[in-house]
């Protein structure tokens, strides 16, 4: 009796293949974008000079614009975070009628052309309802002018930055497992306690990311500010509109110098936020 023929034991060997093509492709594609950004900054730096940078920094209106930009960007990013936190949580956890519609609505500021957004804000504050106007009412009742004053800058930035913050935090809450909150509730926590004690600590990195994105977006905001806030030096002139004004009179080098100043400011703030993120990381 012969033994049944047995199949040859598998002798497949796994040849170690080089990772180089894969990594080269990844670096080639990803690195091309990094290179592009770097080249943009180099092109700016080459076109201007330390003298132009110094002149721009010494202009009192630019100094005022730097301070105003930092203050308004920070304020609008904080306000965005406070609004985005509850709304993103509700959109992520609650299923209610009209949820889809709200989800679409909060994205509208992202897709609207910036000038249209500014014009819409302007029209909102000057819309006449039987002779009543929001702007006139705020001025008459509270001596609180908005249009062409500082609050308009914060509002113009906030409309856009809040949308970014909501989108970012929504993803954050979607990724946090709701079962941990459910467990907390079975152990006696209210919904609010479960949110504050279980969900929120896990959302801190997302909150910082949302704040960072909102701040960065506010820094570059231009169209709505131009229309809704104007460009009054020492009052509503921020760095993005200062660049526009310099370009408007052909001071290209000065405009580039202010752009580089903006980049430096942005890098500084982003580094600080990154450090804060590391500090708060669990």
């Amino acid at each position: 009796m012969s033994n049944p023929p047995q199949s040859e034991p598998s002798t497949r060997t796994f040849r170690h293949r080089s990772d180089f093509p894969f990594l080269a492709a990844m670096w080639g594609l990803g690195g091309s974008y990094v290179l592009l950004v770097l080249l943009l900054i180099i092109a700016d730096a080459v076109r201007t000079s330390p003298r132009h940078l110094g002149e721009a920094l010494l202009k009192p209106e630019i100094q005022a614009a730097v301070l105003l930009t930092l203050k308004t960007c920070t304020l609008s990013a904080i306000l965005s975070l406070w609004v985005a936190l509850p709304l993103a949580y509700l959109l992520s956890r609650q299923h209610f009628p009209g949820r889809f519609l709200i989800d679409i609505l909060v994205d509208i500021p992202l897709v609207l052309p910036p000038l249209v957004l500014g014009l819409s804000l302007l029209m909102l504050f000057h819309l006449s309802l039987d002779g009543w106007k929001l702007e006139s009412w705020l001025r008459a009742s509270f001596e609180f002018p908005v249009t062409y004053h500082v609050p308009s800058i914060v509002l113009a930035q906030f409309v856009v930055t809040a949308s970014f913050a909501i989108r970012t935090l929504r993803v954050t809450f979607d990724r946090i497992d709701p079962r941990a909150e459910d467990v907390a509730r079975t152990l006696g926590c209210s919904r609010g306690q479960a949110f504050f004690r279980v969900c929120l600590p896990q959302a801190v990195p997302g909150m910082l990311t949302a704040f960072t994105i909102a701040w960065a977006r506010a820094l570059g905001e231009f169209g709505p500010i131009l229309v809704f806030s104007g460009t009054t030096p020492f009052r509503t002139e921020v760095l993005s509109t200062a660049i526009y004004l310099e370009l408007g009179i052909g001071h290209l080098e000065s405009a580039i110098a202010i752009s580089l100043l903006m980049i430096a400011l942005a890098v500084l703030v982003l580094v600080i936020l990154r450090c804060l993120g590391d500090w708060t990381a669990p």
Partner: protein
Amino acid sequence: MIRPFLLLLASLIVAAGLMVSLFFSSRLKSSPSLPDLSRQGHPSTPLTVFCAASNREVMQTIARDYEREYGVRIEFQFGPSQTLLTSIEVSGEGDLYLPADESYLQLAATKKIVTKRISLARMHVVLGVPKGNPKGIHQFADLLRPDVRVVQANPDVAAVGKLTRETLTPSGKWTDLHDRTTAFVSTVTEAANSVQAGAADVSLVYDAVLTTYPDLEVCEIEEFRETFAEIQIGIVSQSAQPALARHFAKYLSASDRGLERYRELGFRPVQGAIWGGEPLP
């Protein structure tokens, strides 16, 4: 667990601090070089001028003169002429409107946004080329050369483009230029910036615009010898201070006041009367 609360609390404190800071800084005087005028019997409400960005330098100079002489603060909203016009129309704010050229004022007058228009200077349509004219552009035919990149303002949006089209269409040259134009941009300053940045060899601009471009020079060609536009200022019909607005407009159009500054900064001012030292209304 305490960190999210700490962050939220810190953000609240920072936000409150920023609000207070912005509130108080907005209450401060608009320009650090100006004294508090309201205590000296001068109007405490500043005049607001919606001004095209191309006139920024000259207008700020004249405003400083006026502020020194009369103690009236002038505030500016700079921007593209059409955007400024829309802003005045929607907000109903502003005392004076000074667009890049008179075409916007014609539109504003049609819409009854401005009541009175005062001429300040004339602008000539010219070619803007880099200093030294490296491409040797001296006549219209040079604009059609294949090695010359031409950028011009869109004739449907910007007045200089419209003037160019109107001037060249009767002679049939507009189609040639249109076909040879590398790019159309939305404003006259963007056209000049294209040459300044090296993206174009020549642009069709106003000579007054080039006064702030030290790296560009004017090249006049025969076709545009009689093609001029005017800089005018209009008094906004809804101005809260129409008498004061008229006073400043008159100051601007005085040959030894505003127009003198226009001349100094390279514009071609119109003929104006001598300033009679009129008191504030």
